[in-house]
């Protein structure tokens, strides 16, 4: 690991001010620190934001669940409020990585990193999330822009994620047996306003599968998915799963999710 300057920011304003093109915000550090240790990333300044209490914690209103950016996965997994309002979201958090990761990793860190196989981005898509930053609100469908890319600017900090409480929802994933990231993860959510199918692991970035959502809007049952064709175009292929297998697993896990709703 290369030498760097460490800053512990007391509030979002200070953190944002310290940011430069050669800095990184540190929340749980679950990706940033291993990347630095492996020499894949190096920064002049590391700006630690995990002492900013204001951007932590869980609030449930009638229609939404709002989770502070530096809230840890374990807190979401164990939250009675989340379990009651959106049980599938608590279950997703419970299934991220391993106990060490869940006790360090944060929701804001996860979505800011936008790993193509991370779990939370699919929740943002499926639950019509609004990403609150220090200077704007971004709809989830405008937030995830590509592999490890988001619409965040370099000094912009996520403060909270606001999820819409759906009528029904479920997240089902086929974990990569080695890393336990999603080979395919499918988050099905039925809202009054419509159905979303957030798919992670399958493409370069999370996406809302409109074909599956369309089929489910007509008939919300797993049999409705049987005749949906999923093209392998743009689907990831690696040593763990071919594009064909992944494409089929999107369907298989979408069905499991619908059945579990």
């Amino acid at each position, binding site marked *: *690991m290369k*030498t760097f300057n460490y800053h512990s920011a007391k509030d979002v304003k200070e953190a944002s001010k310290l940011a430069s093109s050669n800095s990184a915000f540190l929340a749980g550090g679950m990706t940033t620190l291993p990347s630095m240790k*492996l020499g894949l990333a190096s920064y002049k300044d590391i700006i630690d934001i995990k002492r900013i209490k204001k951007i932590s914690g869980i609030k449930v209103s009638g229609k939404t669940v709002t989770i502070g950016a530096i809230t840890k996965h374990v807190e979401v997994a164990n939250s009675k409020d989340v379990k009651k309002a959106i049980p599938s979201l608590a279950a997703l958090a419970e299934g991220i990585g391993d106990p060490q990761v869940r006790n360090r990793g944060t929701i804001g860190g996860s979505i800011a990193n936008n790993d193509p196989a991370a779990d939370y981005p699919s929740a943002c898509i499926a639950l019509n999330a609004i990403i609150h930053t220090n200077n704007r609100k971004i709809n989830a469908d405008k937030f995830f822009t590509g592999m490890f890319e988001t619409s965040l600017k370099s000094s912009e900090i996520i403060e909270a994620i606001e999820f819409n409480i759906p009528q029904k929802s479920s997240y089902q994933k*086929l974990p990569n*047996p*080695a*890393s336990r990231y999603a080979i395919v993860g499918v988050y099905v959510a039925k809202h009054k306003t419509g159905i979303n199918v957030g798919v992670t692991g399958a493409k370069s970035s999370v996406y809302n599968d409109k074909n599956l959502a369309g089929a489910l809007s007509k008939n919300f049952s797993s049999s409705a998915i049987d005749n949906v064709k999923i093209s392998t175009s743009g689907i990831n292929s690696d*040593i*763990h*799963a*071919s594009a064909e*297998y992944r494409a*089929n*697993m999107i369907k*298989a*896990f979408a*069905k*499991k999710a619908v059945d579990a709703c």
Partner: protein
Amino acid sequence: MASLVGSRVERKEDKRFLTGKGRYTSDINIANQTYAIFIRSPHARAKIKKIDTSKALKSSGVVDILTGEHIAKDKIGGLIAGWAIRSEDGSEMKCPANPPLAKDSVNFVGDPVAVVFAETLDEAKAAAELVKVDYKVLKAVANLSDAMNSEAIHDGIEKNLCYDWLLGDRQKVKEAFDKADKIIKLDIINNRLIPNAMEPRACVIDYNTASEEITCYTTSQNPHLSRLIMSAFGGVAPENKLRVVAPDVGGGFGSKINLYNEEIVCSWASKKIERPIKWVAERTESFLTDTHGRDHITHAELAVTNDGKFLGFKNETIANLGAYARVFGTVTPTYLFGPCATGVYIMPAAYSNVKAVYTNTAPVDAYRGAGRPEATYTIERIVDKAAMELGIDPIEIRMKNFPTEFPFKQTLVHQVDSGDYIAGLNKAKEMADYDGFAARKKESESRGKLRGIGVTSYFEACGIAPSPVVMMLGCGVGLWESAEVRFNPTGQVTVYTGSHSHGQSHQTTFAQIAADELGVPIENIDVVHGDTDKGTFGMGTYGSRSLTVGGIAIVNACKKIVNKGKKIAAKMLEENPDDVDFKNGEFVVTKSNKKKTIGEVAFASYLPGVRDEVKSPLPEGEEPGLIESSFFDPSNFSFPAGSHICEVEIDPETGRVKLDKYTAVDDFGTIVNPLIVEGQVHGGLAQGIGQALCENAQYDESGQLITASYMDYTMPRADDLPDFNLGFTCTKATTNPLGVKGCGEAGTIAATPTVMNAVINALGGKEISLPATAEKVWNACKELKKSNAKAA
């Protein structure tokens, strides 16, 4: 005193390991030490044109940078193959030079070319980035199946062939095949594995400039052997000036048998730079440079009669050696593999033919089971295929071909002294509720799932020795073990063993044995190992040889102590030694019931006199003290055996395999500590199941290891495994006084074919290759559905 052999004695090691008080190599720090970082080839095959260290040498904190040129100039020898294997045509095997630092060419990604020593680890890393190595990159030979048709990677080694070895009689096999009703054929790939010991390799070197003694602390399974190789072949220092210490070692599984480049380089360099050196591998270095395991391509054929009798067996295997031949690299796919390939069966004719080839990948060497898992996989898979093709139950076909009398002359080499394969399989069948499988399968099917059952019967040849046999087969050293048992004057006992424990719990097991032999409480017995300056020699811990060879040396040394003690006790009691019995720690004269405890005898042996008179408890000519040593070289290998049965459930929608039930019935002869043995079986099963379901080391065409981290290399985890249902049968080994056979590899050997037989059974006999990953199984499920639809 009740016998401790056979009791579930809690491990003496537990307190140390469970409270973080273990002392591993990387816990050792020497004042004024430097830190080493190795510069490794990023290419699988290249010529080294030039190494420029000028900029790096000026970098902050750098003490020195050494390259292959330096090591060649100092005439430091390289790494060696420990076994010389001859080809079928009588020619000797061909091995390339393997210098500790590559000078002219590199042959796998991770091959070290230079080393930086600096004041701090960060400075060493920073300087390493400044070393410029100019390579001429050559086309890598990374694919085993093409290796013999590819360009030779080592000068003078045509077809990349180390040897083309044969064991058995081709003519007899041909005759047997001519008589067969049916020939069963099977092509398999035994997947390459990375051992992944929990503790990465490390060494800390302390050079004493006054005594000129080098002390090398290292992560080794066999410190004595490492010293011998480093001294005799490396020329680093004479044996008396080289001390090798392997303190607590966090797992080896075969990967720490070898002496590695880093230990030679750092030991040599420490003398050169006159500073202590510390090197600790990072996990990526472990993936890249620890010796790997398995990696065979096999074509096997089994000749059978229609009623399921085996007539003959052919085993044609290509084995990957990786870039260089290392200590057990050449014997693992030959004498540790070929003889076991006919399994636990009467096989009238057989041969094993193995072509061992070099590729531009990490060296392949012994990995838990070493050759025997590959052999067992081959025979147990083809036996299941035969059962299916002949329509015979898998248990019935095995029973039909088991030997019923022991000793059993196994087809190719081994004279198996004892066993009862029928009893083992019957017990496994009962414990696994084999007869209830059909109902469970039906229940799974009602939930849309597939269920399969798999059976394996195995034997292995372990307790690797005896010296005259292994040396006849090409081993460069004798494979005995030795022990010294030392009574302190005040009655405690120190047992010095040449065997090394890196998780096997010798401190407990060996103390149990000594406690029984000497009648001393186990609390008063300490076991010392792992330091060439402390106690006797040893040839290392692998092949389940610690108890069967090293443990017996302890037994024999204890017997010598008792013999001497008898003479002393007799003198003290003024009786004839022939009238003295030794039992439960006491020397007793039966007729008069006079006795002396062994503690009293030990005390007297060190204080051989009394006040006011000239009188010794020692018989005429007997030396003071109570210390004895023994070398043990058994007359044969030992032959554990067993039968395992498992059930899997498959989700055809996803291809995911759930291992639902696993029953293992093993015959390890006498069991000294069931608690420890069960732990060994559990660990072995996890590794065997890992090979069957998830582990798979993969190189791409250019020779880059694409599974070089835990993000891509799948280790089995606790939640992948069911509760194991263990049982034991016992036929004692006849070749050692304890009747022990060894238990270290059994789980690994049996689990892989057991699980795959179950998976393939669930798939209605559709062959899939190792490991049974979800995607492969899903594809097979699709095909099965198609063929079932056609049939309907």
